[in-house]
Each structure stands twice: as C-alpha cells, then as structure tokens.
C-alpha cells in the first residue's frame, strides 16, 4: 500500500500541511526542528492511534489550539481509502473512513499499515520491560487490528482489578470480606483477556523470530545470533511456554486462573495484579549475553533496527496481496555506520513506499534518492 496524500491541521508545529506522495522513496529534508518528524509521527498516529514519541495526546495538538486532525488517502491493491482522525486531548478520538464517521476510532486500525523506525526505538532494547511489551503488542495489533480491543480491555481489567484489590485488601485487614465476592468475576476477565493477549504475543513472537534474526545477520554480519525469548510471569505453572504450536487461549486461561488463585493472598496484601501478561518481558540476547546491560551502543542500535526490519518483513509476509506495509525511517541514517546504512537502504528501496526524514540530504544513501521535499518555515515543498 502507499499513502497518496497526507494532510494535517493543528498537529504539533503544523497549522496545516498538505503533502502529495507517491510509491517509492520520499525524503523529507530540513534543518532541526522544522517539523519533519511531526509529519511522519502523524502517519504513525493514523496507523496505530498513538504516537511513537509521547504516551499522551496533549503534546500532539498545536499549542493554543484544541484539536488536531490527520487525514490520509491510502491506496491498497488498487483501491483508495480515505482515513481521518481527530485528536482532542482528554476525549475519545473521532475518526472517519471515506468521509463517514465510524463508531469508535479504533475501527480505522488496519486501514494504514506501516513500520516506523526512529531513534526512540533504542528504548525497546535499553528501556523497561514495558517498552518491549509495547513493541510486541503493537506488532500483535498491526497483524490483527481486532486485538486492539482485547488490549484495551485487558488494560481496563487491570485498573479495575487493582482498585478492587486495594479496597478488598483494606476491608480484609479490618475484618470484612464484602469486596471479595466480585474478585472472582474480575479474575475471570483477567484470565480471559490475558489469555488472548498472551497467545497472540506468542504467535507474533514465533513469527517474528526468524525475520528478526535474519535482519540482524544482515545489518551486523560476522556477528553472533540475535535471540528473542518470551519471559513469562507464569513460570510457576508453565516453566516451558511453548510457542510452536502456540498454546490454545483456553489452556492459558485455565493456567492464569489457577495462578491467580495461588497468589490471591499476596495480591490482597500488596494491592497489585501479580500475574498476567502485563508482568512479562521479551528477553533479547546476542549469543550468550543479554542485550540489555551488555551490548555496545552499535549492537543495541543493530538490535533495534533488526526488530523493526523483522517486523516489516513479517507484516509483508502476513499480507502478500498488495497490502504491504509502508516503511518509515525517521532520522536514523545519521546514527548508522556505512554498512548498516546500506543494508537499511537495500530494504527501503524495495519497499512499495518509504518515507525518510533527515536533517542533511547527504546522510541518505543514493538508492533512496527518490522524491525530495524541503521542510522549512511551516511549508513542505517538493523539490525533486
């Protein structure tokens, strides 16, 4: 697929922008702070309904205004689809497909599919487990947009259940037990949604592994192997969590339920949800060593790059019917050495569409010198 047209209004630094794009590589060039990343962030937002840079929506709306709008015309398998999302911080987003409002914004997920690689991705490798869970869950939703609902419901179950654990724990300490009657119900919801999420993560990881390992071997040749291992909070019940075949959600649900029963006392004492996929991690390794804490700066970058390129290849193979994802590279060439630049350029040049930002045009390898846009002073001008 490719984006034929992108418009934004009151998004980040942009009062309005209107960019016509084509298949193949497009390079956005401009000095620091001119709004290049803001434009690709808008594309990323349309695809995932979240920013790759900030966890909340407030910074996305141009300061002094109340709401931002992002729109795109997307061409996939010869058909054009228009998607529009309106962001008003503190309220639910509103969205339209081909001009008609959809009941919930997340109904537009799947219309635009892309993989975005940006300097922030170093956090997947070096950051907290939550960064890696987010990486996996974003991949899960990109593969199957329906999972956005499961993910949102699971988060809500966690909030409800931890509120209940806190009040029930307090009640228990003062001799009552009234709140405990509903805890079983929330256990059931946690297990049901958690099992679906966990099963989808394991499936995504199993599918990603060969692509990520191949991408790592490509960007860091003559090096050790990149390994990805799911690290589950269910080890007491399932020391070996098989990925192939991926365990049936009903089995995982039963395991979660029995684990919840086992840790109930501790949960009431501490008032936190102690088991479930929100406690899990994705262990990244290079040969025998963990990436986190051991890998060099360059190895960390290669790992992040391999995860994104692997995701790109995976999503491409998931949808072989002309719906191949768009590849977005935000300001990454300046960070990479010559070999990795070339490997990345090789992949990007074969993509149906790629959008690349750079402060200096010469940072972008020659194969990717397609359409060129100058981003300057609140304007996007096509110069080639």
């Amino acid at each position, binding site marked *: 697929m490719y984006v034929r047209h992108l418009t934004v209004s009151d998004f980040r630094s942009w009062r309005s922008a209107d960019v016509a794009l084509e298949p193949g590589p497009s390079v956005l060039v401009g000095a620091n702070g001119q709004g290049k990343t803001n434009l690709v962030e808008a594309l990323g937002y349309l695809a995932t309904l979240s920013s790759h840079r900030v966890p909340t929506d407030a910074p996305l709306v141009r300061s002094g205004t*109340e709401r931002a709008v992002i729109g795109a015309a997307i061409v996939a398998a010869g058909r054009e689809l228009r998607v529009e999302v309106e962001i008003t911080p*503190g*309220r639910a987003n509103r969205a339209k497909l081909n001009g008609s409002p959809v*009941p*919930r914004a997340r109904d537009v997920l799947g219309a635009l599919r892309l993989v975005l690689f940006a300097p922030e991705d170093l956090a997947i490798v070096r950051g907290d487990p939550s960064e890696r869970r987010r990486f996996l869950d974003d991949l899960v939703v990109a593969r199957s947009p329906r999972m956005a*609902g499961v993910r*949102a*419901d699971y988060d*809500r*179950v966690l*909030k*409800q*259940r931890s*509120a*209940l654990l806190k*009040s029930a724990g307090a009640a228990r300490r003062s001799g009552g037990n*009234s*709140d405990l*009657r*509903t805890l*079983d*119900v*929330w256990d*059931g*919801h946690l297990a049901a949604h958690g099992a679906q999420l966990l099963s989808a993560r394991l499936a995504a990881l199993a599918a990603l592994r060969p692509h990520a390992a191949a991408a790592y071997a490509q960007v860091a040749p003559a090096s050790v192997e990149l390994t990805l291992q799911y690290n589950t909070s269910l080890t007491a019940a399932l020391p070996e969590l098989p990925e192939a075949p991926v365990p049936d959600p009903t089995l995982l649900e039963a395991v979660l339920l029995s684990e919840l029963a086992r840790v109930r006392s501790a949960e009431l004492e501490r008032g936190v949800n102690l088991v479930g996929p929100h406690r899990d991690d994705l262990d990244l390794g290079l040969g025998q060593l963990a990436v986190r804490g051991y890998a060099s700066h360059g190895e960390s970058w290669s790992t992040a790059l391999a995860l994104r390129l692997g995701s790109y290849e995976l999503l491409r193979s998931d949808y072989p019917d002309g719906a191949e994802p768009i590849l977005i590279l935000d300001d990454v060439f300046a960070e990479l050495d010559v070999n990795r630049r070339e490997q990345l350029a090789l992949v990007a040049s074969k993509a149906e569409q790629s959008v690349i930002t750079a402060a200096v045009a010469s940072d972008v390898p020659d194969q990717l010198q397609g359409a060129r846009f100058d981003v300057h002073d609140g304007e996007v001008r096509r110069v080639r």
Partner: protein
Amino acid sequence: MMYEGAVQDLIDELGRLPGVGPKSAQRIAFYLLASEQVDVERLASTLIRVKNDVKFCSICGNVSESEQCRICTDTRRDPTIICVVEEPKDVLAVERTREFRGRYHVLGGAISPIDGVGPDDLRIRELLVRLRDGVVTELILATDPNLEGEATATYLARMINPMGLTVTRLASGLPVGGDLEYADEVTLGRAFSGRRRVD
C-alpha cells in the same frame, strides 16, 4: 482565567456535568447570560421540578412520576420475565425495539471498583426481593456490552443461576465496548430475540 462571582460559579457548576468540558461550560454560561429572562427562569424551574417531582419507581427503579412506574403497573406486561439494565435510559432503548413485553429492573449502574461501585451500591438486593415469590421465571441480563457491564452480568448470573431461574444474556452482535443506548434498534432487537442462556 477566572470570572467574577456568579458567572464563575455557573461555569464551575456546568463544568461538573458529564461531557461538559471547561470551554463548553464557558460557552453555555455566556449563552445563558445573553438569553431572555423568561427562558432562563423556565430552565431553572424545570431543574427544580425534576428534582422535586420525579421519583424512582419503588419496584423497578426506573424514573417515574408516581410511586410505581407505568410499566410496573401495566397488567398487560408479562410478569414472569425481567430485563435487568444499568440505567433508566436503557429502559427507553429496549422499549424502542418493541421486542420485549416483560418488566424491568434498573440497577443504577454497573460494578466498577475504580469508581468505588460494588454490588452493594447497586439495586441487587431489591432484585432478589422481586424474585422471591417465584412468579419470575426468566431474567434477561441487558447490562452494557462493555467490561463493567459484563462483570455485573457475570456476578448476577453466578448469584441467581442456583435459584433455578433461566438467566439469559443478550446475543452478541452489539458493538463490543459500547453502551446499550447507542445500539441501533434493529441490532438491539436482534440481540433480544437471539439471547442465550448463561450458566
């Protein structure tokens, strides 16, 4: 910025209403300030009247002008089947489908620990009282198709199933994560006729 005295008080009051943000509160306040005296007085007296005159039906909990609502006192309605909903507005939504001829029970919300709402804060005890004489044989759980609605339905089903009643839940097909109120009549009607037993 803050306005002086009554204007700011009004903005603050309006801002406490559901779905009204600070900007809208300000817009409504200035709209009222510019309105005719009679229009504002009519609005004010309606607000007072709604609080004084409108009661909740002592049986089902729906809003009512008298001690018992029209549906609970209508002898043509089937007394053996009760549809359990969260809010009075859900009664209206179900009535619009014309699929249901039994009676209602309004819980007054859904279980939501975040908001401090547990089973004891809902009209569950009143529901159990209604089931005591054995007239009711089926209970339809029509709480919202979202997490809290599902949790409430599960809780009720587990409690009431052992009493030997048929407990049913609306068929899927309702927009998941949504609000009963926003389901269109056809979809909601279909969900009613396709309801299934929960165990």
